[in-house]
């Protein structure tokens, strides 16, 4: 149950940071609606942000394993 709580907290953290970054990147002056080009920008930004998160996680884990192997 603790594991689930941490996984949920982790997903929420990712969601919050991604929303913040993609809002800053894709919405210049906020207008009367989320127009088509802004939606496309957000969709692309989300995909790249999750790619970045995955790449960073993998890079961190592989570094950790190399360090452990060297000890």
């Amino acid at each position, binding site marked *: 149950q603790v*594991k*689930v709580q941490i*996984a949920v907290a*982790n*997903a929420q953290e990712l*969601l919050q940071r*991604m*929303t*913040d970054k*993609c*809002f*800053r990147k*894709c*919405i210049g*002056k*906020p*207008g*009367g*609606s*989320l127009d088509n080009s*802004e*939606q496309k920008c*957000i*969709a692309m930004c*989300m*995909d790249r942000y*999750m790619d970045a998160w*995955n790449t960073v996680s993998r890079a961190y884990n592989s570094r950790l394993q190399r360090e452990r192997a060297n000890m």
Partner: protein
Amino acid sequence: PQLQRFMEAEVQKQRVQLLIHHMTELCWEKCMDKPGPKLDSRAELCLVNCVERFIDTSQFILNRLEHTHKAKPFFSQNLSD
């Protein structure tokens, strides 16, 4: 259980307050580069639109995560490790 419900409601309220502080900061940066002697109508409209578009962005992201296949491997990987 009543105390618990009360506490949960208060925690939820505090979460909303933090979100409002966060949006104030974000929209302040987007809409108020030069604070003048009054809140002019242009800045006010910008602030209101900023809040609306921020919530739209959150909902757009949540919706897309639920409907896309990409989300599944991420969240399951996330839950299983």
